[in-house]
């Protein structure tokens, strides 16, 4: 039977008993990391991922997927494969203590955006921009950018040229967000309505 839901129709065929088939490749787009700046002057923070066919579509889909409700003034996206990740530390151990010195590398130095993690399970926050000839060097150079008094558990580095930023003329995209009351889940007053309904049903 054909379903009206296109996603149901994409489910794999059940197959024949007694037969072994090679596993079909996934019919899925790749993932892109989404970073959101909640207010002017606040750092960008990692918000989640979107599936998209390419970087430009990732930007378009991230805007509605991640910035419909809460304050936002700008976003950027990068292919997951372009995010370089340091080892993770735990307890009192800061990742800074285990990042090894990278001797000055030959080759052109380019800009990298650095992100740090202050609490396991929370979001990575933008720390700043450094120049380096590779991600390992970028993390080493980034040591001076990071809050010295805090334990940092993880670092990310993304080459600036791999990022799709918000263009200046696109900042208008979030202009009406603060006044969109219906987009705030609490304004639906779901709890009150449920209470009212239960009262009436008594």
């Amino acid at each position, binding site marked *: 039977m054909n379903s*009206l*839901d*296109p996603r149901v129709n994409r489910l794999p065929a059940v197959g024949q008993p007694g037969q072994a088939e090679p596993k079909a490749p996934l019919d899925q*787009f790749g993932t892109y990391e989404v970073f959101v700046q909640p207010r002017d002057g606040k750092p960008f923070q990692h918000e989640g991922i*979107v*599936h*998209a*066919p*390419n970087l*430009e*579509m990732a930007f*378009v*889909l*991230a*805007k*509605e*997927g991640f910035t*419909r409700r809460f304050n936002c003034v700008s976003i950027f996206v990068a292919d997951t494969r372009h995010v370089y990740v340091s080892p993770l530390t735990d307890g009192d151990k800061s990742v800074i203590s285990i990042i090894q010195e990278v001797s000055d590398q030959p080759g052109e130095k380019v800009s990298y955006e650095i992100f740090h993690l202050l609490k396991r399970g929370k979001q990575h926050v933008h720390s700043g921009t450094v120049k380096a000839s590779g991600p390992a060097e970028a993390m080493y150079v980034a040591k001076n950018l990071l809050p010295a008094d805090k334990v940092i558990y993880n670092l990310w580095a993304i080459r600036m040229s791999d990022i799709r930023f918000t263009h200046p003329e*696109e900042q*208008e*995209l979030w*202009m*009406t967000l603060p006044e*969109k009351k*219906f987009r705030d889940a609490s304004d639906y007053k779901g709890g009150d*309505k449920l209470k009212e309904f239960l009262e009436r049903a008594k």
Partner: protein
Amino acid sequence: MMNPLALKELLYKIADDQLILGHRNSEWTGMGPLLEEDIAFSSMAQDKIGQSYALYTMLHELGEQEPDTIAFTRNANQFHNCVLTELPNGEYDFSLIRHFLYDTAEILRFDMLTNSSYQPLAQLAVKVRAELRYHTLHANTWIKQLGSATEESVTRLQRSLEYALPYALGIFEESAYESELINSGIFAGEKALQEQWKIQVEKILQHTQLHLPDWQLIQPVIGGRIGKHSEHLQPLLDEMSEVFRIDPTAEW
């Protein structure tokens, strides 16, 4: 002196366009081609309905009935939306082409309206234009990508484009008050809008393998602005207003 009928007719047609297309696009909710796109398309549909609400509120302030009454109790022949907005969704290629053709016109229309001599409309237009900035970014990006992706995507979009164009030209059906609107500085007129729209449509399609037929050979489908609609509008209205007709005070 401004003719209030001219202003109301303008507000009605824009609001009805937004409401009807907003409702149509919301029919994709839960059925979109991928989760992220489902969310984006549904969210834009919600924007359009919100924009229609703002315009119906403006009409209410001009002496028309309450927004809900205007939206939910009129029959098809009292609606001023262009026929393009009421056509069934069909496949996603048609919905995307309609989204592209319609929103290209709407952002230009609201851009013109930011200069309207009717101040409440000029102020609202600044906000609506900002929301439409995303709608056109979304539409242009998809059209540029799928318009030059695979043989199937190009063929399907081309077919939908050719089907939609006569209806799209119906967006610019002129009002009986056209010269009054222009002379009083309320709105620069459908002709001026259509000229800008053609240039922008051509500009985006240049990035694709899609081709436009000769504009002169396209016969516009008009009548929507004076209440002459296809057979598709009344069933849409029946479904949209079902709850309101059962219980006008229902809240959910």
